[in-house]
């Protein structure tokens, strides 16, 4: 069987001060993704290799890596598309590396929580036996943004986040917009404090690479520009109108 070379980023902090690259020859099978090749390396060649993965079907968002320079889900990136190789596999960019291909994601998780990505609603007037109905058009407004799987590929693609890690980032803003645009939600004002901050939507310079990197077609760049419009509208209203009119 034909083989292809994986050139894998290795960082073993207990023995090495700096990262290195290690090459592995793996079978070049038509139906193998980079993740399958890494699993082959782990099981057959080198059990010390560390990386995250779970579902193998582009749902869990765990196996994001940099493959030949591009942020990709390793379960959806096929070896044959990169033949004859070698295929360079590195951790997601813009994040600290714990070990090999495993990145530290606390910063992202905190930012995600900061935008309150859940439905905020005063339920005191709601009838618990009545559904909150939406028209297809109302659902279309946010459905695209609800497809986010928190894989962080957009953070890896975003040069703004790479240069300034205080920037709240594409996925967190897209998820905030997912709820802001939901007709059942009333939390737009609560999220605005975080979104309209200097490190919120205004940090984005609209490079657009987050949208190209997204494996689920979420379009975080579009979400951020729409959030800018909302933030600007609210700022103008706050400046011109008395509180009871807004």
């Amino acid at each position, binding site marked *: 069987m034909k083989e292809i070379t994986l050139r894998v980023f290795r960082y073993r902090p207990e023995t090495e001060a700096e990262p290195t690259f290690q090459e592995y020859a793996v079978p070049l099978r038509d139906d193998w993704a980079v993740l399958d090749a890494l699993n082959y390396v782990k099981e057959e060649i080198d059990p010390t290799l560390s990386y995250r993965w779970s579902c193998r079907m582009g749902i869990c968002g765990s196996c994001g890596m940099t493959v030949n320079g591009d942020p990709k889900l390793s379960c959806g990136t096929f070896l044959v598309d990169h033949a004859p190789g070698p295929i360079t596999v590195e951790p997601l960019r813009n994040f600290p590396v714990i070990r090999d291909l495993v990145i530290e994601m606390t910063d992202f998780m905190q930012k995600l929580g900061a935008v309150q990505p859940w439905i905020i609603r005063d339920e005191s007037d709601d009838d618990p036996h009545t559904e909150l109905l939406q028209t297809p058009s109302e659902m279309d407004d946010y459905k695209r943004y609800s497809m986010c799987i928190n894989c962080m590929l957009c953070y890896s693609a975003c040069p703004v986040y790479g240069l300034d890690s205080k920037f709240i980032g594409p996925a967190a803003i897209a998820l905030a917009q997912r709820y802001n645009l939901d007709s059942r939600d009333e939390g737009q004002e609560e999220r605005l404090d975080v979104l309209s901050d200097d490190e919120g939507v205004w940090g984005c310079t609209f490079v657009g*690479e987050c949208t190209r990197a997204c494996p689920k077609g979420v379009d975080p760049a579009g979400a951020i520009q729409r959030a800018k419009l909302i933030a600007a509208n609210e700022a103008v209203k706050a400046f011109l109108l008395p509180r009871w009119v807004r």
Partner: protein
Amino acid sequence: MTTGLWQRLHRQRVPLLWWTSRRTYLLFVLRELTSVAVVWFVVYLLLLVRAVGAGPGEYERFLDWSARPWMVAINALALALAVLHTITWFMVTPQAMVLKVRGHRVPGLVLAGALYVAWFAVSAVILLLVLS
């Protein structure tokens, strides 16, 4: 003594020339840098308005100054940069602008097409004014 996780993390650095590593990054940087050409045309317009306000003599001097080869070269370069600036913004506008007609989002191609049509229409009107 064991070392804490935060001390052992490997921090990846963004290279100084990060914007050359990808075509889209380069286009983005060009889009931002070419805004200088737009600023130049605003300044040039203000100078023209000042010359017109100052009378025929000053206006003639402005025209002579504008006809110098180095000024023509600057304006030709600025025009090319401003066109690039406009096109790169038109490329991303449909992503940022959500326009709905009868509950349906207007497709990006239609929106971008409308921008180009408006751009050419305004340019044609200005050309007619200049040539007439």
